[in-house]
């Protein structure tokens, strides 16, 4: 039996609570909320409306206890992740944040995979901060694959009162190779744009090609196209700077989805999680911006040489 490891105030924790009834959920949530309030921190309980209503009835109110809806707070995996990062990194005073609830996994396997990647990336993005998460997964409602993925994305499993290290936990970079992460590849169809860049002076025509094909061949809203093009631009700038003489750009514009693949033959990007951390003053921020302006961004190093970055938006 693994030893109980209490949550240390002022540090980071990200726990999984698996429950098959409301009793375990309420008791686990209560223990977490009580510890958060006792630490002097801010506590957030978030979920779908019925779940929030039920928890509010049993947990009551407190000046530092806030209730929120997933439909307001958890719109997309990356917007949620970077909103937490911003809140913690840009807080003027030291902030201890305790958040517990569900993630809105969505209705299809791609949605479950995208939120599984979110749960994993939380460990990369929020670990520098005094952030505590208790994520509740309902055995009655969720398929076994989703529960298994949650065990790989949370360093600890908890009942609220008792917590132990999760033996199935994987580091965020390693989790990306787990089939449960569902990392997408480029579409099978031929690209709508295929071009080579030799210098920064080629950026403009590359941007215009991607924008034109997206406007012509997809129904994605114009502001999302603009943001995607900006993300592609920053990825190209990064590749031109670090990736050797030429950079290959391919883009696919489908009705509800835009994809870009930026490939170079440079030394590669050592860490596939590059661009997640909050930038240091005067440090690079191109990929950090790019990650926030598209739906998802994947870095992979090629076996022989070079690096490819896949960007998607929908």
């Amino acid at each position, binding site marked *: 039996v693994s030893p109980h490891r209490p949550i240390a105030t002022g540090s980071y924790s990200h726990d999984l609570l698996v429950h098959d009834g409301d009793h375990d959920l309420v008791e686990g949530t209560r223990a977490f909320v009580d510890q958060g309030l006792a630490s002097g921190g801010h506590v957030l309980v978030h979920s779908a409306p019925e779940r929030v209503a039920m928890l509010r009835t049993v947990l009551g109110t407190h000046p530092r206890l806030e209730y929120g809806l997933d439909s307001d707070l958890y719109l997309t995996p990356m917007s949620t992740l970077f909103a937490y990062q911003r809140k913690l990194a840009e807080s003027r005073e030291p902030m201890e944040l305790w958040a517990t609830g569900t993630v809105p996994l969505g209705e299809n396997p791609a949605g479950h995979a995208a939120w599984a990647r979110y749960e994993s990336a939380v460990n990369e993005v929020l670990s520098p901060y005094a952030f505590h998460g208790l994520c509740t997964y309902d055995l009655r409602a969720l398929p076994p694959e989703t529960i298994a993925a949650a065990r790989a994305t949370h360093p600890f499993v908890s009942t609220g009162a008792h917590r132990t290290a999760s033996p199935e936990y994987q580091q965020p970079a390693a989790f990306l190779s787990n089939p449960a992460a569902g990392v997408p590849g480029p579409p099978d169809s031929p690209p709508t744009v295929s071009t080579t860049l030799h210098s*920064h*002076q080629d950026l*403009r025509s590359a941007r215009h090609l991607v924008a034109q094909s997206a406007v012509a061949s997809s129904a994605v809203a114009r502001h999302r196209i603009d943001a995607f093009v900006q993300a592609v631009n*920053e990825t190209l*700038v990064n590749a031109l700077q670090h990736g050797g003489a030429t950079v290959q750009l391919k883009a696919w514009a489908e009705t509800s989805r835009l994809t870009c693949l930026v490939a170079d033959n440079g030394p590669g990007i050592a860490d596939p999680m590059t661009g997640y951390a909050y930038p240091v003053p005067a440090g690079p*921020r*191109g990929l950090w*911006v790019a990650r926030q302006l598209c739906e998802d961004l994947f870095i992979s190093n090629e076996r022989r040489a070079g690096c490819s970055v896949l960007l998607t938006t929908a």
Partner: protein
Amino acid sequence: MQPVGGRSLSWDGHLVLVHDSESQRRAGVSAWVRRGLDLGAKIVYIEPRDVATERSLVRVLQDDGVDADEVLERGQLEVFRAGDDRFYRETWFTKVLEDALAEGYPTVRWSAEADTAWSVMSPEVHASVEAMTDLMCRSQPVSVLCQYSSHLGEATLKTVCALHGDGLRGALVQTTPLPDGCAVAGEVDRSDARMLHLALAAASAEPREDGSAFVVDLGALDFLDVAGARALVTGTETHRARGGTVCLRSAQPNVAHLLRLLGVDRLDGFSLEGSS
């Protein structure tokens, strides 16, 4: 919303083309000549006596698909080779202008590289020629494009910026002086961020006597990347370091979003106003 493909920037007035590379210079010069041909203008170009063939205007135009020989033959384009300072005197300018207007041309356009002028006169004398040119562009149907390499150094380029009343042209971007600051139009990315830095450093060099904010009008800026946003910060650093403030005005939604993402709006001395 701007159509995809970018807006067309002006190639008229007393402009300085700041270029990072020969290909940028060639693209700018060729676009400037094409604009002159569209207007039916008389085009006068001055190049060094010993200009390398591949840098000559005729070659630049030919490579861009312009029938330079034909334009030369009909006299719309004249290329002079500078061996002394005769092509930089006011009397010569006036004569060329009078002759061209008499021949029925509506306007006259001049262009040359700064290096060409500096091979026949001192930078100080050249600065006085620039001042005379600026006056001429304001009072006569004249447009002048002066070509400067961005590698000249910040101090020189600051002086250059101050001498060109209609602002700076890069390949994708134009900065135009305003009474309370400057306007930035077009696109700023990694390839021309340095030009924006220089233009802002020059425009915000003089302390504002009434203590009002230095305004950067971004209304016609269609694209800004991280390098460009950095140029907004570094180009106004001196101004802000002595207590000045900067108002970034009318940014389009994508530009405003990036500035907020990067926290430029929260930096000391910056404000973001009138953004959608």
